[in-house]
């Protein structure tokens, strides 16, 4: 870390995103919504790119598993990865990463699933019981097929289940019980349809992780002035579009000066003045309010004497406070400046 800042030649800010498939498209769409257009190099086979209009940022197109590795190694500053991979591959996630923002796509659960025929097994406590009886009866441990070795071990330990063996499975895990290579599985599932098709059922309390694609910052990457500034810029835009997506602008004119109404609207509906503290003495009012509170707020304004209330969608809302970046900056060690 010292080397690049000593000679003043700070490396670029590296954003690692999935290199193919639906995840790549979804990630590109997420950044585009924040006004960050990912520009891939000359062709689709070029694995380096940039963000239009943001200098000093290099976009690296890599596989999902590699993204986690690059973040852990500090080669990438930001990356988009499923929380499942992050929790599986990195032993001390909280110390190495800042999970900045869930991205709203790539939803899937990692679950413990047993054969449907095990009608006496519904919970992890049942499984514990059955596993130790299985071992006492056969002298062998029950086998769990999974590619999530670490998540499985941690979850089973939390539930006090000890009499099992992990069989590492790198594909088609759900077929393991039918083929006789394992008794149960831990796998990722979106709808549960694959489990059902293989005569498996998830246990009632067997959800290990509710995962989705997440924007992650590496705390071990080299953070110099330029990379920090790039991070601040990217996060400001993401926050602006995220908040805009969840908010509506509500405008009305009240018969009396509006400052009391602004305070009351904040207390009742969490709405804030669209332009900060400045309040119009003639009763004009523009508020930003969470989408699901808009109707209530509008009703309340009509009650207060407004003749007409207009509601509009927002493109982006920039705030002087950049909460996402502030959270990150607290965690980047000052000595890596």
């Amino acid at each position, binding site marked *: 870390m010292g080397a690049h800042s000593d000679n003043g030649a700070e490396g670029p800010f590296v954003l690692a995103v999935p290199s193919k498939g639906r995840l790549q498209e979804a990630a590109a769409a997420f950044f585009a919504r924040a006004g960050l257009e990912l520009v891939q190099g000359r062709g689709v086979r070029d694995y380096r790119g940039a963000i239009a209009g943001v200098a000093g940022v290099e976009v690296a197109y890599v596989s999902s598993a590699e993204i986690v590795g690059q973040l852990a190694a500090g080669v990438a500053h930001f990356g988009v990865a499923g929380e499942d991979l992050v929790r599986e591959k990195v*032993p*001390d996630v909280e110390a190495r990463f800042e999970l900045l923002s869930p991205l709203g796509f790539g939803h899937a659960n990692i679950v413990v699933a047993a*054969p*449907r*025929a*095990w*009608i*006496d*097994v*519904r*919970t992890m*406590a*049942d499984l514990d*019981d*059955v596993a*130790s*009886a*299985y071992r*006492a*009866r056969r*002298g*062998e*441990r*029950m086998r769990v097929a999974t590619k999530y*070795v*670490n998540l*499985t*071990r941690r979850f*089973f*330990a939390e539930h006090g289940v*000890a*009499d*099992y*063996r*992990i069989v*590492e499975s790198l594909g088609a895990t759900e077929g393991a*019980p*039918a083929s*006789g290579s394992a*008794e*149960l599985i831990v796998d990722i599932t979106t709808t549960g349809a694959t489990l059902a098709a293989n*005569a498996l059922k998830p246990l*009632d309390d067997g959800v290990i992780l509710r995962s989705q694609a997440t924007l992650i910052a590496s705390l071990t990457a080299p953070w110099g002035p330029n990379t920090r500034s790039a991070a601040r810029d990217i996060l400001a835009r993401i926050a602006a579009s995220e908040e805009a997506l969840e908010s509506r602008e509500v405008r009305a004119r009240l018969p009396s000066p509006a400052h009391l109404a602004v305070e009351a609207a904040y207390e009742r509906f969490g709405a804030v003045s669209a332009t900060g503290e400045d309040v119009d003495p003639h009763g004009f009012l523009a508020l930003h309010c969470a989408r699901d509170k808009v109707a209530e707020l509008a009703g309340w304004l009509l009650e207060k004497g407004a003749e007409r209330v207009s509601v509009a969608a927002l493109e982006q809302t920039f705030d002087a406070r950049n909460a996402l970046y502030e959270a990150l900056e607290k965690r980047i060690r000052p000595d890596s400046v």
Partner: protein
Amino acid sequence: MTPTVDAPTPTDIVSQAPRSAGERALDHFLAAGFERTEPPILHPAAVFLDMSGEEVRRRLFLTADATGQELCLRPEYTIPVCRAYLASDKAGWVAEYSYLGPVFRARAGQGGEQTQTGLESFGRKDAEAADAEVFTLSLEAATAAGGGALAARVGDAGLFEAVLESLEIPTPWRRRLRRGVARGRGLDAIFNRPSQGALAQPGVLAALESADHAGAKALVEDLLAIAGIETVGGRSAGEIADRFLEQASLRSGEPIEAEKRAVLDAFLSISGDPDQAAVALRGLADSAKLDLGSALDAFEVRTGFIAARGARIEDIRFSAAFVRDFDYYTGFVFEAHDPEAPGARTALAGGRYDGLARRLGSARDVPAVGAAITLDRLANGGDR
């Protein structure tokens, strides 16, 4: 000029070179006739995972061979020495080994390599004498290596089994008690388990209350047929039926009678030096009409051998609830820490593991007892 002081000759230097802590301990084992052995460092990971469970996986240094078989660096010596013994022409016969070398365990913030020394005794029929010898030799060796006396704690899995047997505790509860006690849980925690899924199926259980195995199996098969489930993975319909029967039998009232539980409680709270404990155990056996027979005799004989070898019985602490969390330990268990060492972590651990040989593929049980010393947990850090 001729020097006024004789320069040491090379042979003097060799003979004066101080023995390391590990070598001092090993010397003690060698002098007692335990032949030094050095088993392989690389082993199939499955051996350790099968014996100790997946929890040890995070401690293993794993790798794979060309065929993809998972291998690991040995995390301890007992299983490697036992495997080497079983593969040798001495398998099944008396053989006594000592060792000194590195073991490999992944630990956050630590090196991953530790030096262990220890001894393993196989095939001896005089179990109590062998127990006493391994116990006292290992404590003496740790003192020779580390300088100070260790504080020892002992237990006896054989006594615990005898109590469970004599109280006629139902099999599923024996399983839970063994495991719960080994993990240091109290009886309240063991018996007050979170309610289980099957208990939420009172209809099934009520239908099974007076059923036998065949009746229960038929019911389970019917249930599976009604649900349209054809394949039964891993467990047979009979096994599922047996578990329902077990649940049905445990459903009404307390898991075990209050009197039996009181006896278990009294047994598990017995502690003190081994002589005091023996008196308390005899007292409990008489008052509760427990048949502890040969297990209690063995306990007293062993204490006698330990005393005969010059150890101070009053310095040893017995605890009936001290059971090791590995099911191949079948009798005497012990551990010791150096009170002078920072953190006073367990520096010496051992016990009787007659069940290990069979678990490693032997056709029959082989009597075995052993102990290991982790040198850097002694007060002098094993001369670190």
